[in-house]
């Protein structure tokens, strides 16, 4: 299931859903991304996240289809927040279940790597210097290309 939402999410709720729905899958991997100071100088007070409604959901669905083609997976849950977020808030959640821990780890990392380069979402950093759109990182493209 995929959610693009303004509201915060509750990791425990998502985990319990993954546990309940899983058909004997013994491995559950979660990834949570938090708002951090991308400039590493303590100046970033928050983010604004813009997205392309419709295409975001479509691209994330496509990423799930690709992940399922690569690994035997049970549940996949993706949540991405949009709008105004403060430092240390949760931005993104990916949860994957599988009978095999390697599949669960790989799929969760694959989904994050692809999400970073495929999902039409943009971050704008807010600091004392004013708002600034975050530049795309080459390392994210490299990460996605490894799959």
């Amino acid at each position: 299931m995929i959610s693009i939402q303004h509201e915060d999410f509750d990791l425990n709720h998502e985990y319990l859903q993954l546990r309940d729905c899983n058909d004997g899958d013994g491995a559950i991997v979660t990834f949570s991304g938090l708002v951090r100071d991308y400039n590493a100088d303590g100046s970033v007070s928050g983010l604004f996240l813009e997205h392309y409604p419709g295409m975001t959901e479509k691209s994330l669905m496509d990423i799930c289809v690709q992940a399922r083609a690569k690994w035997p997976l049970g549940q996949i849950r993706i949540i991405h927040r949009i709008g105004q977020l403060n430092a240390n808030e949760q931005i993104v959640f990916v949860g994957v279940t599988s009978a095999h821990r390697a599949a669960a780890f790989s799929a969760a990392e694959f989904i994050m790597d692809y999400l970073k380069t495929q999902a039409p979402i943009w971050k704008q950093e807010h600091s004392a210097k004013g708002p600034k759109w975050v530049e795309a990182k080459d390392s994210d493209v490299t990460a996605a290309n490894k799959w």
Partner: protein
Amino acid sequence: MIKIQFFASLRERLGQAKMNVEYNGELTVEALKQQLLTRGEDWQALSGNNVLCALNQSICKPDTIINDGDEIAFFPPVTGG
């Protein structure tokens, strides 16, 4: 008619999020972009070689043909996650 959308820094530089354009041709996405570039100085924001384009909500190549009723979007490299 086709619907054209702009996002993030591109939306800001162009000062608009979306526009509808009458359409009855057989333009490629690249040709549409070239037409938009003739609209004035602000529109040069579209000329960067890192500007991405989506046709009907899927990333597309410059030589993709646009059909009437399509939804086209231009945007900078994505930075979510």
